């Protein structure tokens, strides 16, 4: 079977799997967040946290809960990392203080940027009780926030948008944990490592001695993809044969990182009582994702067909098609796991990967964050184009007025501001530039990629940039922190405004938001706003490289 055919088959099977899974999973998630019933273990957790699950919160209390929980998580994870020397299962792994700060923020913000080498920087304990726990928690926080926003659209004339603790706990106990357990077992069956054994000493083919660590890989791998986290157990991440041994696990891992973000539009459609609304958001996400997959694959196949036709930075067991599919999916879901070296991609291919993140992680984006990002695009689109039908713009019966547009506009402003300011600063400071492997446009791309990845909470690295140094560790941590929580705060404030509004009934005079026309409008707005923001940067980086 030639590579094109197998590549197309892989994509085809993936699309079918997603198409089959998203409706039941989306419906199930909608039920999870609307039912009144609490499970017994959940009650124990609420009692432990001192939360009253029956009491719903307004947006301020909800946001404060998100903030308190996340701050607690950052501090706890930081302490676990710093104390890893005295915790069990320690094999000499170490981390600088600034790297520890970066790592703690990185995992709590669902970014999973790793400026350390996975197996050399963190012990098995840290990975298991620190990182894996955050893989669950950070993904759940993202989903909780979008559920609060969805409730704001679904409800009217109230101030209550749900209870954060209930949303958080249920996401973990009823969605992430059960799926992750099944997935981990399947991954073990498929060949992923799961042990607590000491590193294995082997002699390589050239006679050199090598120490190969094992660990609780499969369990972490499951949530790494499912929660769009992306922090690898090993430095080589999903390119490592212990994490991603074969084509089957590769396809399965891509499916996992896409499945929740692509199912949430269904949840949204069900919860707002109009499934067509879910379809249009899903269509918008799918078009952008499909285009990215097609463009990256096309660019990479074209780049590899010449004399220099290269498999540089790719695993032979995946090949160009499956690597491109993984790369396009991981950058468009804010996952950031990699099964190939993005630095080795062609100018055009690299540009698309970068653009995927610059879109704001909405195609389909991270767990929760992808959908709320897409809904903000919808609000902006409704506001600009909605005026053209001759009415004050409204979305799902909620008027997009002064406060709604202020919050949405600020949301749109946050990540570009972080990328442009911090990226622009880094590229002009010798202390940061010293970390660059390449010069010229490729070097610029490496630097911008790092800040884009951090600010959009993707976490994938272009490689080439040696980021494990205090300046970059701390500024990237800042980008991750602000890039995660400022938008969340704005989303919750937006939810607070929307939920208090009356719901205006849809008439023939209301701009329809479920039509193909609206989907293309969304695509247009997302591309134009992103394009206008990043065109000069892209021109000096990957575009200059591609056109040279």
């Amino acid at each position: 079977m030639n590579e094109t055919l197998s590549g197309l088959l892989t994509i085809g099977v993936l699309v079918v799997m997603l198409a089959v899974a998203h409706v039941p999973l989306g419906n199930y998630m909608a039920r999870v967040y609307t039912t009144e019933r609490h499970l017994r273990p959940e009650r124990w957790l609420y009692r432990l946290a001192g939360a009253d699950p029956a009491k719903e919160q307004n947006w301020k209390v909800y946001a404060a809960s998100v903030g308190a929980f996340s701050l607690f998580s950052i501090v706890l994870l930081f302490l676990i990392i710093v104390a890893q020397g005295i915790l069990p299962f320690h094999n000499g792994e170490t981390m600088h203080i600034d790297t520890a700060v970066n790592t703690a923020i990185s995992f709590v913000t669902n970014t999973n940027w790793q400026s350390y080498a996975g197996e050399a920087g963190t012990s098995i304990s840290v990975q298991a009780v620190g990182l894996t726990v955050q893989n669950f928690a950070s993904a759940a926080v993202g989903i909780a926030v979008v559920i609060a926003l969805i409730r704001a659209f679904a409800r009217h004339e109230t101030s209550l948008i749900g209870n954060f603790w209930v949303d958080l706990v249920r996401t973990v106990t009823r969605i992430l944990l059960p799926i992750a357990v099944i997935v981990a077992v399947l991954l073990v069956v498929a060949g992923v490592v799961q042990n607590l054994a000491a590193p294995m000493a082997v002699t390589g083919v050239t006679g050199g001695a090598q120490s190969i660590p094992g660990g609780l890989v499969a369990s972490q791998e499951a949530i790494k993809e499912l929660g769009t986290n992306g922090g690898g157990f090993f430095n080589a991440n999903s390119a490592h044969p212990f994490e991603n041994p074969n084509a089957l696990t590769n396809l399965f891992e891509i499916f996992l990182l896409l499945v929740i973000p692509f199912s949430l539009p269904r949840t949204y459609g069900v919860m707002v009582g109009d499934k067509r609304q879910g379809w249009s958001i899903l269509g918008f996400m799918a078009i952008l994702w499909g285009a990215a997959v097609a463009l990256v694959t096309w660019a990479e196949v074209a780049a590899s067909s010449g004399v220099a036709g290269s498999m540089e930075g790719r695993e032979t067991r995946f090949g160009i098609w499956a690597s491109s599919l993984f790369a396009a999916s991981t950058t468009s879901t804010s996952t950031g796991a990699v099964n190939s070296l993005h630095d080795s991609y062609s100018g055009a291919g690299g540009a698309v990967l970068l653009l995927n993140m610059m879109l704001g992680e909405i195609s389909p984006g991270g767990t929760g964050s992808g959908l709320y990002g897409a809904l903000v695009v919808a609000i902006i689109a409704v506001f600009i184009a909605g005026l053209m039908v001759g009415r004050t713009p409204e979305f799902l019966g909620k008027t997009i007025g002064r406060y709604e547009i202020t919050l949405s506009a600020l949301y749109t402003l946050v990540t570009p501001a972080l990328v442009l300011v911090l990226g622009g600063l880094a590229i002009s400071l010798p202390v940061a530039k010293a970390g660059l492997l390449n010069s010229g446009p490729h070097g610029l791309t490496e630097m911008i990629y790092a800040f884009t990845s951090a600010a959009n909470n993707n976490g994938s690295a272009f490689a080439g940039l040696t980021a494990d140094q205090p300046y970059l560790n701390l500024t990237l941590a800042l980008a991750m922190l602000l890039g995660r929580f400022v938008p969340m705060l704005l989303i919750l404030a937006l939810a607070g405004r929307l939920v208090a509004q009356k719901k205006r009934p849809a008439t023939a005079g209301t701009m329809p938001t479920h039509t193909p026309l609206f989907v293309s409008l969304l695509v247009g707005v997302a591309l134009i706003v992103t394009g206008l923001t990043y065109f000069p940067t892209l021109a000096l980086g990957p575009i200059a490289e591609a056109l040279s």
Partner: protein
Amino acid sequence: MSTATTTNSTTRSTAPKKAAGMSAASLVAALPQALVKLDPRHVFRSPVIFVVWVGSLLTTVLAIISPSTFSVGIAIWLWITVVFANMAEAVAEGRGKAQAATLRAARTETVARRLVGDGPDEEAVPGSELRLGDRVVVEAGQIIPGDGDIVEGVATVDESAITGESAPVIRESGGDRCAVTGGTTVLSDRIVVKITTKPGETFIDRMIALVEGASRQKTPNEIALNILLATLTIIFLLVVIALQPMAAYSGGTQKVVVLIALLVCLIPTTIGALLSAIGIAGMDRLVQRNVLAMSGRAVEAAGDVSTLLLDKTGTITLGNRRATEFVPVGGATAADLADAAYLSSLADETPEGRSVVELADANYDTGSGDRTVAGLQRDGATFIEFSAQTRMSGVDLASGELVRKGAGSQVAAWVVEHGGTEPADLKAEVDRVASSGGTPLVVAKQQTGSPATVLGVIHLKDVVKPGMTERFTQLRTMGIRTVMITGDNPLTAAAIAKEAGVDDFLAEATPEDKMALIRKEQEGGRLVAMTGDGTNDAPALAQADVGVAMNTGTSAAKEAGNMVDLDSDPTKLIEIVAIGKQLLITRGALTTFSIANDVAKYFAIIPAMFTGLFPGLGTLNIMRLSTPNSAVLSAVIFNALVIVVLIPLALRGVRYRPASAASMLRRNLLIYGLGGVISPFIGIKIIDLVVSLIPGMK
């Protein structure tokens, strides 16, 4: 409520409607005003234009420090951009100025004859010193000193100063026609007016402020749009600021002039420049239709309206019932019936009576040439007027022939009294007419010496104004529900509602019912518009999102509504909605156009900045612009010129046809979205062809 107020609604003679377009002359006339508006305090009100203003200042300084054709060219065109933006606003404001001048003339200082206490004694005080509750005497030839209600007397008043209508109107104490406006002139009689508005806040004062745009507040939607534009401006500011270190890293530090040019091209100057002009022009379009909106917010709300409450009489129907059909019964012929109906109605001067005569004249030979009221009376005929007791009218001819017309039961009784019998089919026909919403009038005749006979039924009905059904259909496609308000019984109301094609009706409506209906609609999230003129309409007018008070109405009504229709034409509500929608559409269309324009500007400026550094980026120069300097300047010039080109559109408003939101969106996205992407590619290319001829642009 009374809506028979269309007396002065049809023609306007004195104030000619201004042409909707704009001439080059009006642009030139606006130039001085545009230059005055260069004052930073004024420019600061629009964040986008303020950025351009700062950019112009910076480039001017830079052009002075190191002059070159390019930097001077950029500096000049940036200033021109600001001037053009100011000009748009100045032109829009200029249109209201003429109207304001006319109004000012009416606001001359008057001497009021104030009554002292309750007594008949008068004292002369300046009109500007009147207080609320003062009572003043105005006689023929005098100007009414302030807004108020007539408490005594009746007079004809010339209101042309505010309505432009030269025919005088009658104003009388009590009832719904008691309101008078300061600045209008009493033509006959003597009235006593109780002042209801403080001097300086009178209707004319408010009108002047409105048409001049002096009291213009930014509307909610305008504020929201401004916030979005400001955010875009900040993003582009960051883009341009971050570009310099990246360019420096790449080895090609950019000139500050070029960066400023890029910034100005990217920020949404087009919509930023035209935004206030669009708002002013929207108000102006209402003024041209003789409607005064008390706030821009009201105009916007008009676009959002989803329920229209329309009074039946005068709005949906012609206002009076008309005879539409003669239905013969009991073997009589239609011609006999028409003839008798004609005779019985000849002396009936009510609109219904006249309509019977007209219908008979139009369809049957009534011999109207020689059978007139006066002629028949001369021959000895006696006309019997309608009375509440008999509930019949008719005529006793000289030949002894008796003709009667009236309510079914009365006429039937009269026939029996005069030896006749009630035909078997009469009741069925009477019921048929009644159930169709009409009013049946039965006609009977008695020839000399023979028993009386019933000839048939006249079908009187409310006639729906021509074209109303189509308008309701249009409204429905726009997603607007129409509710007919009437005092009729539910049966009649249902029939007319069906005929007119309204979506719903409120029969036997009291002011409380109306209020309840508005509340119910609003609770369902709908915006409601209505018209009204009576004092009992005031609460509903205030509750409605758009309340249009008729100018002939009471001051309470005018105070409660947020718009006043000087023509007092309730049908105009539909036009008002269209104007509100057009205002919002224009804003959205130009915003979309403005943002879409940026794509081409990037393709002009980015290759110009960096092709020297990375020759490969020359591929992006898809317009094949001649030189980097020419490319940048051409983009800046296009950016400025597009403002002027779009001023007429901003003032006139985007073409608007009632259609569903989906089809409007499709059309406008195509024109202003796609058009906005494509047109600057062409425009910049053409400008470049000219600019590249300038020496020193290499």
